[in-house]
């Protein structure tokens, strides 16, 4: 059953909802990348909570005008207007008062959300029954979604995606180096507003699917997941979009199978699963890779120190060092060097002397910059250079390995 949902074989409506959610997820991941890079991720929290009063007011207006209060385009329009006002409040508070941005976000978020909840309560007492469905905007629900609703979401997601593709260069320039961007004629204020407007678009479109409380997760988790895998902005945008789309797809498919499950939380949990996998397993930046790198480095340090101690006939006090040497067959349990150990130790000591000369000589500046006390000198200098240094040191020649 779940497999059928994943492969879009669960009827026309469910298929359309899944495609719409996936497009939304991709748009959210891609847009979120720029929020993250511009270090404005939290603003999206203010944006999303500020949608609620708009939803309430739009519902009331539509009922007063004699229409259906639940028409999605109208509700989304209301949400967009009120969250735009919330966004302006945040930027006004930050610019013209001494409040920092995080304080302004906290204030706007809670006040708008509180007001929205009051409105929803009023609506419930106003015309019982007809308000049913508005709570769906809190946590999202794709169950019983209409064909037209799905169309609005899919179209909105695709449009947002297109806008991001068009603006990706100026937005990247701005996020990396705002002053340079300004010197190239990018209007910094307007481009910042564009990033916010895109985040707002994703939020409003995603209200029905994920709900306003959790839409933030769709904007933030995919980019931080993507950051583990790459050092390039363009790749990060792609990976983030992929993660967002995948999570949304799984979430939508699941709630097609089990309509009682709220869609938003499922999407967020899928997204979180991808995040945890990346956190642990990503090459280079992943926790496991960092740990392994540290252990390997520690071994090299101990090995080197042990060899130098052997060469100079000093006792080895650290058990870890001794065990390493022993395992490599370079020393016996009592700390006395084996034949192989003596040869390696002599080489290590000689390398130290060579490094000393290299670091003192201006001519080897670029090589000296690589000195870390661990590297074999052959990895940095050519054979000719080494024998030239050996000439200067004097003593027995030809000790290279």
């Amino acid at each position, binding site marked *: 059953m779940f497999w059928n949902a994943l492969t879009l074989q669960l009827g026309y409506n469910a298929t359309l909802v899944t495609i719409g959610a996936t497009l939304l997820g991709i748009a959210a991941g891609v847009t979120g990348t720029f929020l993250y*890079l511009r*270090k404005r991720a939290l603003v999206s929290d203010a944006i999303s909570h500020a949608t609620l009063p708009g939803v309430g007011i739009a519902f009331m207006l539509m009922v007063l005008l004699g229409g259906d209060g639940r028409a999605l385009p109208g509700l989304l329009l209301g949400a967009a207007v009120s969250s735009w006002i919330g966004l302006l409040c945040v930027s006004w508070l930050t610019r013209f008062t001494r409040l920092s941005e995080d304080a302004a976000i906290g204030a706007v978020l809670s006040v708008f959300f509180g007001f929205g909840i009051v409105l929803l309560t009023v609506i419930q007492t106003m015309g019982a029954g007809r308000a049913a469905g508005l709570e769906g905007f809190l946590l999202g629900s794709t169950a019983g979604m209409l064909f037209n609703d799905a169309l609005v979401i899919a179209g909105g997601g695709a449009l947002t995606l297109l806008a991001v593709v*068009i*603006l990706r*260069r*100026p937005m*990247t*320039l701005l*996020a*990396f*180096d705002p*002053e*340079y961007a*300004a*010197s*190239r*004629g990018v209007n910094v204020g307007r481009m910042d507003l564009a990033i916010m407007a895109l985040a707002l678009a994703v939020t409003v479109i995603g209200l029905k699917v994920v709900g306003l409380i959790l839409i933030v997760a769709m904007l933030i988790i995919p980019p931080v997941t993507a*950051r583990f895998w*790459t*050092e*390039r*902005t*363009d*790749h*990060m945008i792609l990976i983030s979009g992929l993660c967002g789309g995948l999570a949304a797809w799984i979430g939508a498919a699941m709630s097609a199978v089990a309509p009682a499950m709220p869609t938003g939380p499922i999407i967020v949990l899928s997204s979180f699963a991808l995040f945890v996998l990346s956190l642990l397993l990503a090459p280079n930046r992943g926790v496991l890779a960092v740990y392994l790198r540290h252990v390997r480095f520690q071994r090299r340090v101990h090995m080197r120190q042990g060899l130098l101690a052997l060469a100079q006939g000093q006792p080895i006090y650290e058990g870890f060092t001794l065990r390493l040497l022993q395992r490599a067959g370079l020393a016996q349990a009592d700390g006395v060097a084996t034949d192989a150990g003596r040869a390696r130790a002599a080489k290590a000591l000689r390398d130290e002397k060579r490094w000393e000369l290299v670091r003192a000589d201006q001519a080897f*500046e670029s090589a000296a910059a690589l000195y870390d006390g661990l590297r074999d000198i052959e990895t940095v200098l050519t054979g000719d250079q080494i024998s030239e240094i050996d000439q200067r040191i004097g003593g027995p020649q030809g000790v290279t390995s």
Partner: protein
Amino acid sequence: MSLELAANMGAAPKAEIPADSPLAIRGMTVSYGQKPVVFSVDMTVTEGSMTAIIGPNGAGKSTLLKAALGIVQPLAGQALVYGKPLKASRHRIAYVPQRASVDWDFPTRVIDVVLMGLYRELGLLRRIHPHHIEKARACLERVGMTDFADRQIGQLSGGQQQRVFLARALAQEADLYLLDEPFAGVDAATEKAIIDVLKSLRSEGKTVVAVHHDLTTVRSYFDRVFLINTRKMAEGTVDEAFTPEHLNQTYGGRLATGQIDQLELAG
């Protein structure tokens, strides 16, 4: 600008603006809050010259550059680039910001940063072609950073980061180069690499203006100086304007006489 002020500044500013000057600033005032950082400053950059902007900390050196580029909004004054307003001639300027103004953990490689210099050429939608990459590599070559093209920028030393910034500016193929403390906190090899590039730009007829801190190298690096301490203190060739008298005025006695004597010897 009041007449007394103009008189205080030594040479009275000329009313007309030389149309061929790469950068002519008139009556520029910039203020953060209620305190002017740059006050009614005139500056005329000579084409094909290398000019050092000199002054104590907080004297408005960087701010003057940023105002000229429209990065900060001036309260008053204007800047003309090759005789035209900034909007019409922005493409002829390349700016090298301070290294510290950027988050170096940003997910981008050295080559990507240099490609940012081609922003105008690439526009919004054009694809990056091999010849764009070639161009970026050639700029890296000029600053001796070709080997680092694929590194993440955070793995570079401070001096290498500065050279990448310079390569990005070179990619713009501009006529006027504005640099904000290009030698701050860089190693000797980088300092040499940067000054060599700047001098080769000058020999190609380009114009260079740099905010500069190290008074001992002014004579060997630059041919003109601009002394500023909120107000303009002096402007001219190194021989005319880089004098003990002007330095004393600019730094307000913060330089010991011994230091100034040494500068004289250095020249």
